């Protein structure tokens, strides 16, 4: 990306933030909170997710066979099936159906697949097309695109909708409340549905055994769209087929809870069309026999069968489009689908859909908004590893890009990644090299980095936003400090403390504190000579570089593991890497060996205390009041509770944040084009930490990025919690205490 591309991207995002950010945040955060509440009541939640995933996996594996079975079932019921290769093919077929029917008006219930093929545009020349979902109708009137895959108009406030209606329809009395707007729309749309000839719906699921389709809705417009028209056309991607009616159960239980946080939506229509209801002719005021009804199922490939052959993108086809990965995403919560989305789809999984359907270029436009925080991973009802799909697509984008080599960065970072790699990605991906150089030349490197001239150069050449403080490299690294240092003789246990990049070069104090805390609990500590984890290159989509790091880290640590030493990790994003992504980077045995024996620092301390070590050796909390922000990836693994438990046990009085992510996410917040999103996300966190009763609490956070973000946005300092817990001189504790 050139400097001016970056600036215009930053401008675009800033515009969306300003125009739509508040409405999007209020809605998505409401859905997200609803999800937590609703799934908490569902006893078998985890089992249902696994069941749902297994059904989708099986269905996609057997897809050709299931499509045949579905086709036979629909035809036996009296319907017609058309399998369309692409959008043009599908649209041509629907146009034919509409022409045969001599239809003047087509009414539609909400369907993302019809948005994907741009069906409305294709039909517009032949007839009137009316969206009957209230949100879609608002967008049709406003000529805007959906900003969310389930609730398409969340970017519009009630006031904006009222203005739109009042201006367009000039009603006798100005419309104002949500109730008035809804009743007005209901009446207008009711008239349009009554004299429509063809009804178009999507389908959330199709069952091959019976030819039944499931439609998940709330308003009742899909019911009317089907009941009031004689000809029903359903458009659906081929991936919507599942084997049997019974297998709908986990999806029906999960889709509403995962998406908008409703236990179930008002209507789940299970239709085996043509439906058995009489036809309704509102003009002649007559009903007719159900036998007059006609049904067409248009099954659309449009890239899906190729995705099915693609080992990395295949999982995308499991997606049931519930929107959990949008609502749980801290970045999406700020910008919505107009910035975090492609031609049709939005949110985390959109990268997979858009890459498969539209191509890499479209996915590349917004893919960087996934920071890999993983907060969507546990929320996805079909257990898709959404961040991994984003990483893979980013890697493919990198490989496909042939930007010019940048002398500045190329000189800094000799690397085997493709020559055309974006210089910004190359810089952040090779942060290990930079950090080494930074420490070796500190404090000179820090002074240099801080001058106005070099900040301007950095912004221009690699897009590091100059409003961000840069990390200050320590001249003595953590490993240098630990080297040759005597540790506990005759210890209870032995650990290797992983010297992550940030602890080693920047946050050296938290490393020292971790050593002191572990030693106080009678644990001997070694700090091994191993390279960086590979988190930095992986974030930039540099999978091969990350793999080399992973192999080298495993080489360096597994000998210790074999010798009976436990691996302890301070940086949560590196601990998460060992637990999650290394599975994709290492062979299975090496991955398992390392994952099974590596622990997040507080998880380990908790284990020691639970197994009889005495907490007396650690600093006691004495009721000291703390505000704690755990790291996003730590929470996905469920290990943040150990920090909370240990702090609690030691007598600290802790309140915790409940935002999904701090918004910094490694390099993300440093990038010029994303600075504003990053700060908007961070402000949700700092709002919690400056609220009444919290504003005077000392701030602790586990992740490097979170600490960077908090330091930039809060007036008071923040520390890693180990620095409060380790036995130390009072002066070293959080200042101001």
């Amino acid at each position, binding site marked *: 990306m050139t400097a001016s591309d970056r600036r215009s991207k930053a401008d675009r995002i800033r515009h969306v933030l300003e125009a739509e950010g508040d409405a999007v945040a209020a809605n998505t955060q409401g859905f997200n909170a609803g999800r937590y509440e609703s799934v908490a009541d569902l006893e078998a939640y985890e089992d249902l997710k696994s069941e749902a995933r297994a059904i989708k996996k099986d269905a996609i594996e057997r897809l050709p066979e299931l499509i045949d079975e579905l086709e036979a079932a629909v035809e036996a*019921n009296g319907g017609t099936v058309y399998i369309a290769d692409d959008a043009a093919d599908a649209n041509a077929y629907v146009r034919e159906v509409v022409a045969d029917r001599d239809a003047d008006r087509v009414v539609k219930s909400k369907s993302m697949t019809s948005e994907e093929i741009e069906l409305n545009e294709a039909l517009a020349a032949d007839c009137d097309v009316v969206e*009957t*979902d*209230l*949100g879609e109708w*608002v967008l049709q009137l406003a000529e805007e695109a959906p900003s969310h895959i389930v*609730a398409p*108009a969340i970017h519009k406030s*009630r*006031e904006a*909708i009222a203005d739109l209606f009042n201006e367009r329809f000039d009603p006798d009395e100005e419309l104002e*409340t*949500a109730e008035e*707007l*809804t*009743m007005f*729309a209901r009446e207008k*749309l*009711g008239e349009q549905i009554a004299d429509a000839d063809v009804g178009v719906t999507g389908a959330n699921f199709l*069952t091959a*055994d*019976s*030819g*039944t389709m499931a439609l998940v809705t*709330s*308003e*009742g*417009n899909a*019911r*009317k769209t089907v*009941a009031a028209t004689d000809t029903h056309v359903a458009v659906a991607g081929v991936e919507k087929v599942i084997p*049997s*009616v*019974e297998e709908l*159960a986990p999806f*029906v*239980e999960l889709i509403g809870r995962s998406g*908008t946080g409703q*236990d*179930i*939506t*008002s*209507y*789940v*229509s*299970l*239709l*085996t*069309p043509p*439906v*058995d*209801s*009489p036809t*309704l*002719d*509102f003009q002649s*005021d*007559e*009903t007719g*026999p159900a036998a007059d009804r006609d049904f067409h199922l248009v099954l659309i490939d449009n890239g899906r069968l190729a995705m099915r052959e693609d080992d990395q993108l295949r999982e995308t086809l499991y997606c049931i489009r519930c929107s959990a990965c949008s609502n749980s995403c801290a970045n999406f919560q700020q910008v919505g689908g107009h910035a975090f989305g492609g031609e049709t789809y939005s949110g985390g999984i959109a990268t997979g859909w858009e890459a498969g359907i539209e191509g890499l270029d479209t996915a590349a436009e917004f893919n960087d908004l996934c920071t890999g925080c993983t907060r969507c991973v546990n929320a996805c009802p079909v257990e898709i590893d959404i961040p991994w799909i984003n990483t893979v697509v980013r890697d493919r984008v990198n490989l496909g890009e042939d930007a010019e080599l940048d002398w500045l960065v190329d000189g800094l970072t000799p690397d085997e990644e493709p020559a055309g790699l974006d210089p910004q990605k190359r810089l952040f991906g090779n942060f290990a090299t930079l950090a080494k150089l930074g420490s070796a030349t500190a404090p000179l490197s820090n002074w240099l980095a801080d001058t106005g001239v070099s900040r301007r150069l950095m912004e221009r050449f690699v897009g590091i936003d100059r409003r961000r403080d840069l990390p200050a490299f320590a001249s003595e690294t953590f490993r240098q400090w630990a080297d040759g240092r005597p540790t506990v003789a005759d210890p209870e246990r032995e650990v290797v403390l992983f010297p992550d990049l940030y602890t080693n070069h920047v946050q050296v104090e938290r490393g020292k504190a971790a050593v002191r805390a572990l030693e106080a609990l009678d644990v001997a500590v070694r700090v091994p000579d191993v390279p960086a984890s590979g988190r930095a290159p992986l974030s930039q989509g540099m999978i091969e570089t990350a793999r080399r790091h992973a192999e080298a880290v495993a080489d360096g640590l597994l000998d210790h593991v074999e010798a009976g030493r436990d691996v302890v990790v301070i940086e949560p994003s590196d601990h998460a890497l060992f637990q999650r992504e290394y599975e994709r980077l290492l062979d299975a045995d090496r991955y398992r060996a390392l994952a099974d024996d590596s622990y997040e620092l507080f998880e380990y301390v908790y284990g020691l205390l639970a197994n009889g070590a005495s907490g007396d050796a650690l600093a006691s909390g004495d009721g000291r009041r703390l505000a704690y922000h755990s790291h996003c990836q730590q929470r996905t693994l469920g290990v943040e509770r150990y920090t909370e438990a240990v702090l609690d046990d030691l007598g600290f009085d802790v309140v915790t944040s409940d935002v999904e992510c701090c918004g910094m996410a490694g390099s993300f917040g440093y990038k010029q084009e994303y600075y504003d999103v990053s700060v908007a996300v961070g402000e949700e966190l700092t709002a919690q930490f400056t609220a009444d009763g919290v504003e005077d609490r000392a701030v602790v956070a586990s992740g490097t990025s979170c600490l960077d973000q908090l330091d930039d946005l809060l007036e008071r300092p923040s520390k890693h919690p180990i620095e409060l817990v380790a036995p130390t001189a009072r002066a070293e504790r959080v200042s101001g205490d």
Partner: protein
Amino acid sequence: MTTDHTTLDRFTERLDDFDVSHTLTTPDGVPDAIEAVTDLPAVGVELPDSLGRLPESVETDPSPSDLEAAVTGVTAATLGIADYGSLVLPSTPDGAEPASLYPDRHVAVVAAADVVPGMSEALARLGDRFRADGGDAIVATGPSATADMGALVKGAHGPKAVHAVVVRP
């Protein structure tokens, strides 16, 4: 098939959660129970014998304009789903689907014996039926609703209020 006490309790609790009011009655009490919650004009479809009969005031075989004018629609539900307080509404040649959809108030009559504990039990029953002779069912939970206009509003395109008449022998 009998439904045990706890399943029925769970069903009525969940009806409450979704703002669906209900009456428990016997087949003989059905006409009165319906009448008590019916505002006129009312349309509906004949109930299966085991569920009692419609009150005289409910007009069957409605024309499209009757549907539009009706304030109340009365239809039978084939199943109730206890975990969700859902009523499973069939589409029938005599027009159960439009009668349950167009009027502002829907009154659903369901046999206590047809209340199943959860979603899997409901779909197991429907699966056999759909495979044998097609068929349609709306799993309806609470009134129709939308949040698209900036706040939750009941009665988007479908009914604003729902009442269940649960029939015990």
